[in-house]
Structure formats: C-alpha cells, structure tokens
C-alpha cells in the first residue's frame, strides 16, 4: 500500500497532461480484448514493445477469466445446484481472475509506468470499456527512455 500512496503523491504533485484511451477490440466477438495498437501520444514516453506486452498480457488474463472449459462448467453446475448460495462463501472464477488482473496492473504501474510518468487505470473501473493511460507532465525526475 505504500506504493499506492507514492503514486497518489505523484498524482498530487504532477499535473495531468493528457489521457489516452485504449479501446476494445471486437474482432473476436464479445470477449474482453483491448486493441494492441500503440497510441502515438505514448511514443515519447514508453517503448512500443513494452506497452504491447502489457496489453497482450491483459488480454490473456481476460481470456482466461471468460474461458469455457471444465472448470467453469463445474462451477456453474455446482452453483445452480446450491441455488447460488455457494457464492456467499466463495468467489466466482471470473472474480478471482479480476483480482489477479488488478494486482498485475498495480505491479506494472510500480515497475514500468510510474517511473515514466504514466499511470495505467484498471479497466474494471471503466466498465471494461477502455484502458486509460494517464500521461503526467514530464518533470525532471523519472523521464522516459
């Protein structure tokens, strides 16, 4: 949580220069995927490879959450038989993966984006519509490569 406070401190100190929105990619249907196209505003701040890697990992995580397979069927049937009371005790698979994703986003922010004056917003806070990247004004410390 200390990192969170430091990020907030950065937010307090730095002014928001711009916000970039990575939209959803529907070419595979309604599954939650984000466009991996590198936005031009980030060119000066971060490596293209790095960014695309982040988005690709996110996409994989969301795919795992929505995967149809043995485990999801088992969970669905169990839930139905217990009249969904089982979810008073345990989380759904999707919720578990969402927790994993939020941890990943935080980790990426700490390691890669915050030092470059950028901040990724967890897509769940935007209704899984966009990945919001906040670009802070470039101060002297922590300028991007």
């Amino acid at each position, binding site marked *: 949580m200390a990192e*969170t406070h430091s990020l*907030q401190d950065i937010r307090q100190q730095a002014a928001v220069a711009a916000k970039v*929105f990575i939209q959803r990619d*529907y070419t595979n*249907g309604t599954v939650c995927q984000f466009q991996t196209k590198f936005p031009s505003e980030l060119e000066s701040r971060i490596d293209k490879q790095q960014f695309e890697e982040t988005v690709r990992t996110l996409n994989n995580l969301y795919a795992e959450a929505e995967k149809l397979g043995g485990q999801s069927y088992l969970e*669905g049937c169990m839930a139905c038989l217990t009249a969904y009371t089982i*979810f008073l005790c345990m989380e759904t698979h999707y*919720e578990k993966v969402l927790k994993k994703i939020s941890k990943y986003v935080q980790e990426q922010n700490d390691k890669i984006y915050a030092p470059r004056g950028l901040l990724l917003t967890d897509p769940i806070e935007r*209704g899984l519509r966009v990945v919001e990247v906040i670009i802070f004004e470039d101060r002297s410390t922590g300028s991007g490569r």
Partner: protein
Amino acid sequence: MHLGVADPMRDCEYSQISTRSSTPMESPHKKRSARRKWQAFPGRNKFYCDGRIMMARQTGVFYLTLVLIVVTSGLFFAFDCPFLASSLTPAIPVIGGVLFFFVLGTLLRTSFSDPGVLPRATPDEAADLERQIDMANGSSSGGYRPPPRTREVIINGQTVKLKYCFTCKIFRPPRASHCSLCDNCVERFDHHCPWVGNCVGKRNYRFFYMFILSLSFLTVFIFAFVITHIILRSHRSGFLNALKDMGLSGFHTYLISSNQTTNEDIKGSWSSKRGKDNYNPYSYGNIVTNCCAALCGPLPPSLLDRRGFVQPDAPQAAPPTNGITMYGSTQSQNHMCDQDQCIQSTKFVLQAAATPLLQGEPPTPPTSTPNLSCEPDLLPPHQEGAPAHHHFLTPDEAPSPPGMLPCSGPPLAHSHTLPFYSPASQDSLHEDSVRGLVKLSSV
C-alpha cells in the same frame, strides 16, 4: 459494483487505487460522508439494500408475478398436498416444495441482479471519442449533430456495425443495446421483462431461463397432481361428486347432471346416505338426458300476465293490509273509549262508596293534585240528595275549572287508584269520575 455478490473488501481495493485523497485522516471522513455509487447512478433504476439489489423503475408487474406464483403454489400445498401425501406418497409435496423454492430463487435472482449494464463513459473518455470521430469525419462544423456514428468490425468473417450511443457516450459493444425503460446500455441485451421487473442481459440471462423453465415444470407438476387428486376423489365417491369440489360451475354442472336442485343437494333429499333405496325420482337416468332437459328443454311461459289490465268489478283478493281499516278501528276505538270511561267511572264510584265504610279516616290525596286539603263536607256529596249536586256541574254543562274538580275526586278515588294512574292523566280521570258520580247520583 459489477460483480454480483457484494464484497466490501473488493470495494476497498478499488477505492484505494482511485481515491485522490492524500492524508489518511481525510479518507475515513470522506468515506463516511461520501455517497455510494448507486446513489449517483445516472440510469432509471431502483436500488435496494444499499445498492445490493437493482431493479427497473416499474416493479408493479413483478409483484403480481410473485403473488401469482406464491398464491397458486400455496393453495396447492394447502389443499392438494395433504390428500396426495396420504394417499400416494409424501415425496409429492417435497418435490413440489423444492421446485417452488427453485422458481422463487431464480426469479429473485433475475429480478434483483445487474443485467450487465455498461457504465456511462467518463467525460474524458467521451471527449476523446468525440475527437476521434471528428478526426475521422473531417472537421465538421458545430451546431448540428453529425450523421449516426458507426464503426465497422469484422467478427468471425461477419461485418458488424457498432453503433454510438448518445446517452451513454460510448460505442456499444456488439450485441449490446440501449434499454429505453431503464435508460442503460446493457451487454448482450435480450429484452426488458416487465414480469421480472428488470432487463434480461448477459449477467442474468441464465437465471431468467432457469426461472421460466422451472416455472413450466412447476405448472405442469401442479396441474398433473391436481388432476390426479380429482381422479382419486372421483374414484372414491364418483366423478360427479368430485365435480362438486371444483368450484361453483363445477357444482352446478354436477347438479344439472344429476337433475337436483341446490336445496335438495344441501338437504340430501335424494342422497344414498339416507337409505339404500333412496334415489332421485326426477332424474332421467343418464347424464346426457338430464343436461339436455335442463339446458335445452322447452321454456315454460310466465303465468303472471304482468302487463294485463285490472278488471274493476272483479272480486278482489284481500287488500294488502291487516284487514282492519283505519276508519273502522278508530270508530271501535272511540266506542271502546267511551265504554272504558264509563267502566272506569263506575269503578271510582264503587270504590269511593266503599272507602268511608272500610277506612276511618279520609284517604291521603296524591301529592300531584293541587287541592289537597279538601273540605270534609265535600266528601259525602254522593250520599246526599240531588240538591247537593247543584254545587257541582251537571253532566250536561261544561266541566268546571280544574281547580274545583279535584276536590271531590281525589280523596275518594286516589286511595285506591293512586298506584294505577299517572299524575298526567289524573285530571281527565277526575273529570270522568265526577261525571260518573253525577250520573249515578242523578239516577
């Protein structure tokens, strides 16, 4: 939050990332006074239980659905299940109960959960999208709405148009639609169901499906076992008797089929319970003939001739009174009154005559009469001869002022008559008794 079951821990996590507050002192204070997101929700939904339950605005029909299901099932459990459990198997109410709770559970889950509402775009997002669209369209002059904004996507070889929602300020994902009743974009929008009081979308479609499926099973179950119940009862006491239990039309169908009246049925006039040889002599023997006779038989005419004219000289029936006319009764009453008065006054005279012989002292006059102290010499006027009466009025003359009259009457009459006459009627009675005395003495 989007994720169904409320989890306060998760709420904490998200708000920690998104909160802008720096000092730890401030954040708890802000949390306490800050509103929940559902209170600021822009769509037309109703929220209950502090945001855990989400429904559409019009919920009246949902309550009707609930009432119909509960009442029908309740009646089934109350009236059919005891009989079926005892005559067939107790598994019937058990299975019925499980089905009933499953139906209720899925209904509530469908109605109370978030159907998959897409949150509206934040202002930054909306601005960014507008910019992108403007760039794509070329610089269009402001002041008029640009043509409907669409984006095309190729999904598995099919070209799908994504529409822009002006209310939510987003490009709708494929299969999403904006519900005008709830004023929300809903993912994988199926329809807005008034029976359930909510939209049916991505997140509650499975519950909706299980609700309607289990409800069909429950309906079939109840119907089948109600029929079974009737069949079993009719095996025991005859089909027609079983009809009796099926409501008013069933009851009268039974009556028509057996050619009985309600009265006869209630009294059990032709019931076999009265005696083995007791049967309905009016029945034609079979149901069809009985029904035809009741429903298709000849319709007899009215015997009343309601619109015919009354004949003046025709001997009439007794008028609709007690037979005593007013005129007659008053006459007789008057006659009776006169007779009564005569009798009463005679009674007074006799009593008065008897009084001095029986009692030594003059009887105490009643307190209501004004002239209590009557002179003793007034007492024996009736014993004297005729001339004494000239002090008093002759019967033919008008009565004397009331002041005089009571003097003669009360000591004589009231010793015996006090308990019988009320003070109000004493004046007229005094008059009568005096007249009576005068008459007698004048003989």
